[in-house]
């Protein structure tokens, strides 16, 4: 039986997924940086800078002032009301979208998001972050996000809601991968022939859940070009740009299967061009400048695609 979905609800599910994926990525990065901050490593020239640059709207000066201030960063990222992208605010927004599409998400998923919301709003949380409990809290939140993804996979019916939700999730994940990758290549001028060691790249790989896969897949040195292969082109790495684009493509195909609108064809072509641009880039012979362009252009085109996608499916007001 053909099931339709309200545009508003589809919009809600798309953004619910985006906010939760953003929260997940941000917490993973925070967890990585926080744990590594206990080691006094030689190559940590950035501190929390990549995290603050991508996920917050702090000014350059503010970031420079606070990039090594763990206590400030923990509170600002996790529960600061003024930070529009704090975990607390993202969970509030996610829950609001979940509430608006509550009849289309499962009870299990709703209850999990709701309990996370209550945890984030508990008045004791900011104080606890100042104590030795901070790591336990971040670990708990990381697990909550893993559980969210598990519940999503196990309980949600496949179909329209799933497709919109998955497209949102993979757009968000792709943007996170590109932005964090940019943060690490920008500081070395996109030098693909440089000799940054594994300690340098470990921070990026752990933030993207790709450290173990990297160790298993690649020989020891040099890393700069291999990291590109892993985070952009590796089809087996769930956070790579290629992987996420393939999944967006897959769900788009399901969405467009019975849709003969010319706008739909146009949007599918637009995404096809973006995917091909990445797919047919020869990373073996990639130059420094081409890497920079690849990341910048892919990001810009994906943001444009997301806007056009929303216009086509969610313009209900």
């Amino acid at each position: 039986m053909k099931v339709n979905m309200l545009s508003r609800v589809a919009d809600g599910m798309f953004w619910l997924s985006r906010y939760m994926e953003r929260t997940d990525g941000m917490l993973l990065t925070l967890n990585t940086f926080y744990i590594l901050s206990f080691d006094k490593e030689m190559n940590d020239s950035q501190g929390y800078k990549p995290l603050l640059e991508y996920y917050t709207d702090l000014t350059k000066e503010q970031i420079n002032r606070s990039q090594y201030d763990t206590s400030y960063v923990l509170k600002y990222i996790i529960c600061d009301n003024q930070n529009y992208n704090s975990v607390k605010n993202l969970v509030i927004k996610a829950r609001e979208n979940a509430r608006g599409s509550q009849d289309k998400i499962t009870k299990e998923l709703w209850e999990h998001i709701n309990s996370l919301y209550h945890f984030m709003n508990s008045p004791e949380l900011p104080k606890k972050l100042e104590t030795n409990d901070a790591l336990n809290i971040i670990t708990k939140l990381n697990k909550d996000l893993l559980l969210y993804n598990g519940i999503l996979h196990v309980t949600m019916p496949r179909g329209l809601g799933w497709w919109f939700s998955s497209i949102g999730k993979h757009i968000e994940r792709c943007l996170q991968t590109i932005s964090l990758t940019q943060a690490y290549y920008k500081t070395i001028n996109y030098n693909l022939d440089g000799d940054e060691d594994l300690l340098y790249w470990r921070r990026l790989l752990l933030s993207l859940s790709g450290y173990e896969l990297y160790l298993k897949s690649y020989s020891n040195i040099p890393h700069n070009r291999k990291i590109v292969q892993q985070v952009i082109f590796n089809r087996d790495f769930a956070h790579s740009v290629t992987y996420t684009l393939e999944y967006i493509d897959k769900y788009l195909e399901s969405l467009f299967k019975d849709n003969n609108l010319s706008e739909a064809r146009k949007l599918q072509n637009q995404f096809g061009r973006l995917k091909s641009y990445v797919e047919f880039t020869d990373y073996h012979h990639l130059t420094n400048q081409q890497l920079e362009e690849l990341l910048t252009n892919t990001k810009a085109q994906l943001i444009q695609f997301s806007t056009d996608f929303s216009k086509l499916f969610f313009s209900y007001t």
Partner: protein
Amino acid sequence: MLELLSKLNPNGWDEMFSSKGVRSSYRQVLQTLQGLNQESLESKQKQASDFFMNQGITFTVYGDDNQGIERIFPFDIIPRIITQKDWIEVEEGIKQRLKALNLFLEDIYNEQHIVKEGIIPASLIASCPHYIQEVHGIKIPHDIHVHIAGIDLIRGAKGEFYVLEDNLRCPSGVSYMLENREITKRIFPKMLTSNNVSMVGNYPMILHNILVSLSPRGVSNPNVVLLTPGIYNSAYYEHTFLARQMGIPLVEGRDLVVNNSKVYMKTTSGLQQVDVIYRRLDDEYLDPLVFKPDSALGVPGLISSYKQGNVAIVNAVGNGVADDKAVYVYVPDMIKYYLNEEPILKNVPTYQMENIEERELVFANMENMVIKETNQSGGYGMIMGNKATEQEFKKAKIAILENPRNFIAQPIIQLSTVPCLIDGELKLRHVDLRPYALYGPNGVEIVPGGLTRVALKEGSLVVNSSQGGGSKDTWIVK
């Protein structure tokens, strides 16, 4: 172990105890409670609170920093029990009342025989703000106006039932009736089974069948939707709950559009026609072209589509005239007029402030009266004479004299009491009862149960959740 009897001293009708001791329907429950220590009772109470919190059955309180704090509607774990014998009276009484009220609505929006024959004064109808001229003469499916009713009942000093008010527009609270039972299953599973308690869980199925039966289009799978004002509405949880239980889309006004006098919803695959709307917003917000022009909650053109019979609206538009507190006085007369029967359930004695003699009587006894605005609900616009100050009496008198049609007065009735677990102790609190009646082409059906609302403040007779009330699971025992 809890000491119960020594702490209870019922003044009026107590649901658990009579002067001879515990009532037989409560015997097992009391035994179970006495077998529990305070810690385990409190742990059950906490389990219930956590259940409501995790489900999102909450409302938001905003502080000075504009940060919302989520609160649950308090739930008391000790059930309220009604015997089968009492329930039969309630059931028959509500069915009778609902049939009469429905006939009244059909009559008042068509021939108006009841007015022409002088049973109800024309001026009362003409002055009712909820009488909707726009739907006069409209034909609606099966002539049913009140598909869902939540009629509030109270018990007097001898345990006799009175109707306190008829809610025939968008009665809320049914999700609490259903969720209260779900939590009781978790905290008192054995007690529930051994007491042979009637089931309430089939309410959404009965409602869904009625909604489907109202479709104006002869299609096998009509498109039924639940229209909500949105996520900030205090009853939003209930809207999502019912939509989920019935498997129907939960829509907001902005999701719907009227084209060529038909209602459509905006989906990701284009427009899809809507056949039946179970609306959970009041008449005046339904259509900005007919009612409040500045309201964004409704759908422009909806009433036009409704009048042409292209969409069914549940409950019907204009029902407010039948649950107006001044019209309430005439319900016993309606029962006699339309059904030729004596009312099974009594009204609470009610004084109309338009009547000079009755007004004088009320003014002379204000401390024994509850004064209500006829077009308010939820405990708003109400003055309890035994709690009001001289200043409030003075203000009320001025308001009444300015617009007497807008007020009624009733003697304060001591509602019945049930023990509640409060601060680790069992204390008596006043309760009312809202059973939910569903009226479809096959007649009126009432699931055996209802929402028992509790006035949690000591001595208070105001049970509304907006005024600090809570709720209890309601058992009809066979």
